[in-house]
């Protein structure tokens, strides 16, 4: 069953068309990696799906709910309330964490459960403790983001996204703001989430990780999906010249 379906999505910034006719779908429990050179539109794609950017055309369906449709060539978004509903079913982990600096780790995590989902504080704290344990952050509840390492901050931001129990979790280069020795701890957590059958879409430059963790890979270039498929096939013996060229740059570095 597909939980996210994107059809013919397009998006321009002024004259620059950044997404051209993007179509793909994500099944429940699937881990999809999106790879591609800088400027190919990966972040813009995630941002369109997450309502942080307004698309120009195409269709987006999340968890069976139509978020975006196109009528007579014009993009039509669902009513506000539906959009909010959809938003609560998806989570996004940012490259630079975007934790709330004035709130402690615990406050960051329970902010939305308490004030958006209107859960009791007790319940929210209990679940947050569970998540923190999973993230290896037990004991850091009272710390402030500025007191944590980059890797720890990113783990808090993953816990904050998970606190809303999203159906699907997006990551935009979750490790590229981190020192190389800290990326491992984030990748480990994503792998653990994958084991629990969490549906995830991950934009990454970590090719080895993408091959390792995902069961579907999308290669983007110049606003198009150039190729997509099984990681072993795409990384192993792609027939596409552009993909080959892109991947060859990572040979040796991994």
């Amino acid at each position, binding site marked *: 069953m597909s939980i996210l379906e994107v059809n013919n999505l397009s998006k321009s910034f002024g004259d620059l068309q950044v997404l051209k006719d993007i179509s793909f779908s994500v099944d429940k429990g699937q881990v999809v990696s999106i790879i591609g050179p800088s400027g190919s539109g990966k972040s813009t794609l995630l941002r369109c799906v997450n309502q942080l950017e307004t698309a120009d055309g195409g269709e987006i369906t999340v968890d069976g709910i139509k978020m975006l449709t196109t009528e007579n060539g014009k993009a039509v978004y669902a009513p506000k309330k539906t959009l909010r509903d959809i938003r609560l079913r998806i989570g996004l982990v940012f490259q630079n964490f975007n934790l709330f*600096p004035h709130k402690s780790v615990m406050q960051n995590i329970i902010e*939305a459960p308490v*004030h958006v989902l209107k859960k009791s504080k007790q319940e929210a704290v209990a679940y947050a403790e569970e998540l923190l344990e999973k993230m290896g952050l037990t004991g850091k509840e009272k710390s402030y983001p500025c007191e944590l390492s980059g890797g720890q901050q990113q783990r808090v931001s993953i816990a904050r996204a998970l606190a809303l129990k999203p159906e699907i979790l997006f990551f935009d280069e979750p490790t590229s703001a981190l020192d190389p020795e800290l990326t491992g701890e984030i990748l480990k957590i994503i792998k653990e989430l994958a084991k629990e059958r969490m549906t995830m879409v991950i934009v990454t430059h970590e090719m080895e990780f993408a091959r390792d963790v995902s069961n579907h890979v999308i290669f983007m270039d110049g606003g198009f999906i150039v190729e997509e498929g099984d990681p072993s096939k795409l990384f192993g013996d792609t027939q596409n010249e552009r993909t080959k060229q892109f991947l060859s740059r990572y040979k040796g570095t991994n």
Partner: protein
Amino acid sequence: MKTDDMLNVAKILLEYLPNTLKLFFFTLLFSIPLGVLVTGLKRCRFKPISWLTNLYILVMRGTPLMLQIVAVYYAIPMIVKGAKDSVAANGGEIGGFIQFLDDCMHSESYMFVALIVAFSLNYAAYFAEIFRGGLEAIPVGQYEAASMLGMTKTQTFFRIIMPQVVKRVIPATANEVIVLVKDTSLATIIAYAEIMLKAKQMMNTYSSIMPLFIAGIFYFVLNAVVTAVFMLIEKHYNYYH
């Protein structure tokens, strides 16, 4: 000057300290909320409003406060007179706001009211620019993170953005408040009986500049207190960077 005279000067200045403090506190009381309002108006999407706000800020920051005090002090009676005349010419009755201004003008505290109006309008312009700076320094990622968590615009502003803005604007606000302490002396231009006016008068009485120095000590002590208060506030917000 003899020590006795100096003590006498200090004693008299102390009597007028409450007037200085009254001007200081009432200006803060009105100019800070007004500054918040002006920040909002400046960011208004309806362009004429934001242009008018810019013009207001330009005038307030671009002309001497001393001039603004005089202008307000004399403008209110002129406006009231003009309004009364035109109402009378049309055979109507004076009421509402004009009546309020008229009453105000003839009250004992008119001078003080005019001062508060001028000071608040002036300081609101400076505060507005400080607050705008603080608001614009908040990374867009904070808004995006809040919106990804399903927070409403109101929740985002009051729970995420405003607390961070407050921390950021404290140093610049402290600066402005320290200037305000000294700027209260500009009220001498319309002979408001505060410390500086009395100091000037006593300079003549004693033919000495000593009263001015003693007044200086008063301002210095007031600002030492202001600085200490802001240090405490900064410390309170020091739990994160």
